[in-house]
């Protein structure tokens, strides 16, 4: 599933509004809060993972920005579950960097994380959902 790691900074005026709940209800997103604090100036900071349909995720982020919430993404890395990948090749239709590519003549599909830009296109293009988004640990 498409997932994005975010650091949200809420201005004091909106800290008490049910913003996250609106993300769930109006944009059909699910979330996982990794850290949340209210700073002395009454500003809120929240580190969360937001997941859902890519289009809805960007609409949700738009909604946050309109409320004056500062949105920053956390670095993410893409990971392949080797035991799940069936080496079909479907993902190579969308991978823009060639990180996922067919190796010839074996026809194995190789994944080279060094070439991956973490664009996330393969996550929903993979027919067996072998590609996953992981948040970079140091960002947390």
């Amino acid at each position, binding site marked *: 599933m498409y997932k994005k790691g975010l650091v949200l900074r809420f201005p004091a005026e909106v800290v008490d509004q049910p913003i996250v709940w609106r993300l769930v209800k109006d944009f*059909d997103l699910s979330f996982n809060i990794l850290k949340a604090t209210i700073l002395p100036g009454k500003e809120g900071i929240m580190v969360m993972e937001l997941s859902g349909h890519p289009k809805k995720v960007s609409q949700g982020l738009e909604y946050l920005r309109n409320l004056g919430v500062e949105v920053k993404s956390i670095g993410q890395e893409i990971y392949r579950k080797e035991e799940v990948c*069936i080496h079909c090749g*479907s993902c190579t*239709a969308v991978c823009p960097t060639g990180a996922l590519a067919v190796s*010839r003549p074996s026809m*194995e599909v190789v994944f080279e994380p060094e070439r991956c830009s973490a664009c996330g296109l393969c996550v*929903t293009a993979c*027919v067996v959902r072998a590609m996953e988004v992981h948040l970079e640990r140091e960002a947390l």
Partner: protein
Amino acid sequence: MGEFKVQKSIEEINERIRRGEAVVVTAEEMVRIVKEVGPVEAAREVDVVTTGTFSPMCSSGAFINFGHPVPTIKAYRVWLNGVPAYAGLAAVDIYIGATEPVEDDPLNKVFPGEFRYGGGHVIHDLVAGKKVHLRAIAYGTHCYPRKEYETEITLKDLPYAVLCNPRNAYQNYNCAINLSERTLYTYMGILRPHAGNANYATAGQLSPLLKDPYLKTIGIGTRIFLGGAKGYVIYAGTQHNMNVKRTDKGVPFTPAATLMVLGNLKEMDPRWIVGTSHLGYGCSMAVGLGIPIPILNEEVARYAGLSDEEIFTQIVDYAYDYPNGIKRNYGVVSYAELKSGKIKVLDKEVPTVPLSSYVRAREIAEILKGWIKRGEMLLTEPVAPIPGAELFPFRPRKQ
């Protein structure tokens, strides 16, 4: 008939398998052998050629009898992990189809839909030994009074579960491109605009029906590899068509023959029955299927030895032509060209994308080869040909 230099019968080949003397090779190996020694010598040396394919195959599903609870029920609607199964068969008989999405799936409402879970995933979960939630509702009758039933089922406890796929093993398939301005999400994968990529879906020289293009050895009753177990060809598949344009070597240029296949789900392996999700299109199931070809004579050997250079498909536009039923193509390419990674379409170099796992197809051909070599599987003489096909005689004619 009778004009062959080499003539073997299935019985002779089986006798050699039983004695552990049969020469069994994969379709890839057969390509090399026929190139090196020619079809006659190859037919003398080789007894069986094994093929394989592992690819999403729509028109797949399973018949399940889930057994009667007490009091009994005549199920009217049934869901497995929320995926509707067809219950209009008998009191507790259902059919779960691979492409049925989970009931509350948002489908393509927000485009492109993800189709995360469906019938193919349910079948995979069952084969993987997982518990599956079954819910049934009924209107109640004198003999079957119960109106609702919920339980957890596992494959091992089900009284009966059989994989029965109405259309598998498509003999050849189109190479898809998109000549429009926008990205397309199709059953042929994601197609970028302006022919940004060309997708193809068969294993070429390893693919079962491409190695016996006239179905002269594969017929009703042929024992095969299906989902990791032994299964059977039971009839022609839906959309089966033998009446197609062929190369001078006899291989169809277009989608042609198909098979209906069946096997005991309880013996299958989750590695070879995998639920799939196709962005913007729907869900399906990847099925592992392999067919052994008995090398009865040099003609069978020649077909089984056909290489990627000798097998062709046509390039079809999925933006306008395919949805509008327009029979037009943008050229013909060989599987060797497709596998090279690039083809020429409308004077432009286009990267190719496979959708069928060649790596896993090869693995199936190897497994099947092992079964036959070790005598764990004998070949079968079909009871009848697939409609439109004519079988080779399985016994040599006595002069």
